[in-house]
């Protein structure tokens, strides 16, 4: 009897997932510690980071305990919650602006968290419910437009923030879920082409409108600059291109084994901007070199493969879709964040999962881990 119970508890836990998440959190803490040393209030920041991990254990546990299947029936209220989370920072007395986007929730001058982070998970749950209706085959345009129509609510609101980076995360999440949900390759091709046209034409249109209106219409100037600098990094090396150049110098100069933990000159001498948040990977690359980057990517591979394993073992399509959404979210964030530090992607404010300083983000990733465990634990029942 005892043996059976022990086995069931053991089977309820996914040790690989928890192990990888633990290793990533420790790795991230080490890097954040190295990045904030010498900063004003560096110690406080490091403590806040550790606290974020500790606090994150609560949503992890809650998400694990909640039977994900019950969420399938809450599409309407969840969509409203999603919209509320995204709009909350805009509510007078609740919002705060940072780095050009009004994306913080604050009460009485105390900055709480960025509600757009948990909104990603809510979006995953909602989109999974919508896509799961089609039982693994989405062919009819009607169905596709319904899916996109639901996506348009959170995506539209997030783009109004404006937060282009998070908007792209929403798109990536939906794309991954549509793949598992059975949308055909034909449609992916159509959307890829339409997206390319939209972005290309949109940028021109935006520039034209800005000129005509005399102020920024869609994209802010700094966003436009980031995109343009991505196309041509030498365009403005002291301005928007500066961050990219300094990040590349930091990572490149790490060479094989790095300059040693805490000994990165680009970071410690302030050449690297945002080095504890968006550019944490640059600190890692500089101080731990190619070896450090390889270890991190190996850990991510372990995380994502474990997650894929959980997805394939899901007892239903809904669970598989939720896991696919989380996998897509993480994969895109890794691609975007690491990619921007090495000049492969345009610079956006997307942090690196489990690594970057930022408690809203850490808590969200912990909750996502809880959701995976929720699917895993209920794979047989």
């Amino acid at each position, binding site marked *: 009897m005892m043996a059976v119970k022990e086995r069931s508890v053991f089977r309820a836990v996914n040790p690989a997932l928890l192990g990888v998440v633990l290793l990533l959190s420790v790795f991230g803490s080490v890097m954040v510690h190295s990045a904030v040393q010498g900063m004003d209030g560096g110690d406080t920041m490091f403590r806040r980071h550790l606290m974020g991990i500790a606090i994150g254990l609560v949503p992890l546990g809650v998400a694990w305990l909640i039977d994900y299947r019950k969420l399938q029936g809450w599409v309407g209220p969840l969509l409203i919650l999603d919209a509320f989370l995204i709009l909350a920072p805009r509510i007078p007395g609740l919002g705060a602006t940072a780095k050009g986007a009004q994306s913080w929730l604050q009460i009485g001058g105390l900055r709480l968290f960025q509600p757009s982070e948990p909104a990603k998970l809510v979006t995953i749950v909602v989109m999974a419910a919508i896509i799961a209706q089609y039982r693994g085959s989405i062919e009819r345009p009607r169905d596709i437009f319904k899916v996109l129509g639901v996506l348009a609510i959170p995506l539209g609101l997030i783009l109004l923030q404006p937060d282009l980076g998070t908007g792209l995360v929403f798109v990536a999440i939906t794309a991954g879920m549509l793949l598992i949900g059975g949308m055909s390759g034909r449609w992916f091709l159509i959307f890829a082409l339409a997206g390319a046209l939209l972005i290309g034409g949109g940028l021109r249109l935006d520039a034209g409108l800005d000129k005509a209106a005399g102020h920024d219409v869609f994209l802010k100037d700094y966003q436009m600059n980031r995109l343009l600098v991505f196309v041509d990094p030498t365009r403005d090396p002291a301005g928007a291109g500066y961050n990219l150049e300094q990040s*590349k110098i930091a990572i490149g100069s790490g060479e094989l084994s790095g300059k040693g933990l805490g000994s990165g000159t680009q970071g410690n*001498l302030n*050449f690297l901007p945002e080095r504890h948040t968006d550019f944490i990977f640059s600190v890692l690359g500089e101080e731990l*070199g*190619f070896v450090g980057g390889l270890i991190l990517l190996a850990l991510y*591979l372990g995380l994502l493969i474990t997650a894929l394993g959980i997805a394939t073992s899901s007892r239903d399509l809904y669970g598989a879709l939720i896991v696919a959404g989380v996998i897509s979210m993480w994969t895109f964030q890794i*691609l975007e964040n690491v990619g921007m530090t*090495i000049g492969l992607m345009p610079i956006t404010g997307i942090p690196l999962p489990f690594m970057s300083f930022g408690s809203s983000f850490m808590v969200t990733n912990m909750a996502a881990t809880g959701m995976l465990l929720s699917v895993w634990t209920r794979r047989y029942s």
Partner: protein
Amino acid sequence: MPTFRERLKPRFAILGVVVVAVLGILLFRLWTMQILAGPAFAARADDNRIREVTTVAPRGRILDRKGRELVTNRPTMAVLAARSVAENAEVMNKLSSLLDMPVAELKDRITSVKEAALAPRVVAIDVPMTTVAYLAEHESQFPGVEVATRSVRRYPYGDLAAHVLGYTGEISEDQLAGADFQGYDPTDVVGKSGAESSFESVLQGDRGLRRLEVDAAGRPKRIISETEPEAGRDVVLTIDADVQKVTEEALAQAIKDAHADGYYKAKAGAAIAIDTRTGEILAMASAPTYDPAVFLGGVSNKEWRSLTTTSSEFPLSNRAIQAQYPAASTFKAMTGLAGLNYGLTRQWATYTCRGLWTGMGKQWGKYCWNRSGHGVETFMDGFADSCDTVFYEIGYAFYKDKGEKLQKFARSFGYGQLTGIDLGGEATGRVPDAAWKKAYNQNYPEYQGWLPGDTVNMAIGQGDLLVTPLQVVASYAGIANNGKVMKPHVLRKVLGSDGKTVLGPTKEVAFAPKVSKKNLSIVGSALHNVTTIGTAKGAFRGFGIQVAGKTGTAEVTGKDDYAWFVGYAPVQQPKYAVVVVLEQGGHGGSIAAPAGRQILAELLGQRVEHVKAKDNSR
């Protein structure tokens, strides 16, 4: 249920491929950046954090032969301005009134010369403390302007030996590009002329280098490494400050004498004292002179104009080595010695001077300076009286002898070529010959032929012959030194950082003409006669030491006569030779020779006195 899982499998496989592809792309990119391009990025990271700051090394001193400081260094408060200041009219106006310097000049100093020089430029030195204090208090009103201590040259003897010492200035773009100035910074101060330029490589020290680690805002964080600047080497010259002083005074006195004599245009000249046995220059003066201190901290346009206009007589040029004059009668020693050497005359050969010499035919008659004639003159008398007729005859004999032997002989003593003195800008002079004349008159065929008169004119030091004062004194030093012309030089030795000699005195034969001891002694005694019974008799009356010399009075078209004296002493055991030349100064015997006497007196420990002498020879 199995069908559901079966259907999802390929889709998850695609997602897995996407995941692996994303991580693979990132890893590949990291590999190219960190492994392949790693060293290049590492260099850029170092560029970011490492600033190299150089500190100027003190320039070596210049000492006279007795160790007295002719040039040394002193600290000064300097005002520096960044290039951006030139574009800021408000700051320019304020700075202009503060430094009492026209805006245009201020702008010149900031922007002129070097585009590449990003370092702030010195716009004023020796700034009064009140100005320094004002700038410090109103720092915010003067962006790009700073005050710093700089080391500049100090001249304890004022303008003494200015031409030998030379002046310093900021390195020019041409210099910076040249091979001699590799490793120099665009703001380095270098020697521009004279010894400062000749011995630049030893006078210039090695800059100190401090490598700092700076943060992104450029704030220094720590010193990575530091090399102390190494001071330049001290240079000891052959110049004797006492002799130099007397030489310059003698030249100045000669100008006054010339004015008193009615030669009001006399302004410029040169004088040299040389050791006949070694070629060491003990004094070298050029008039008019300049004050090397005006170049400190950059010369102003006004000052530069005043030093380079025609009416200024070009005080920057060192006439002792750069001016080319007709040699006049000083050349008769060459003609006489050459005549003896080639058997075209003898010590006691006689000539008859009737005032007008018609040796080349009646229509080509030439006057002796003494138009009433010297009567019967021996070769020896020809020197004492400076009789032109004697040397017309010898010159004509050279013409008839063919082979341009007079020219060859003059060249063997160094005429028409560089002596190789260790000062820049030396002129070669000119020993004319048939080939030269043909080339020189290439557009005038009727003037291309070499005529008897050409050789005859050269024989008395006129015609197309041009010499530098240095060539003249070197050739006489050669006569005094048994026919060996020692290479003239101003560098005695270079001292190491411990004060010990690292490069000793040199003694080099510049020219070794083929000439017999007998002939040298004949000419030597003829030159001795010049100061006892000849044209310099008045100048050397009562002089305690026997002197051999020659006066000269050069005719220059459109100008007053140029006065020459060259000589050496003591006659029996010669030590020193001197030359004095004064443009438009009149007669050598009355103007130049007394100056020569003063210099020789100082060299030989005699009382330096100014004598008045009469001479109307040429």
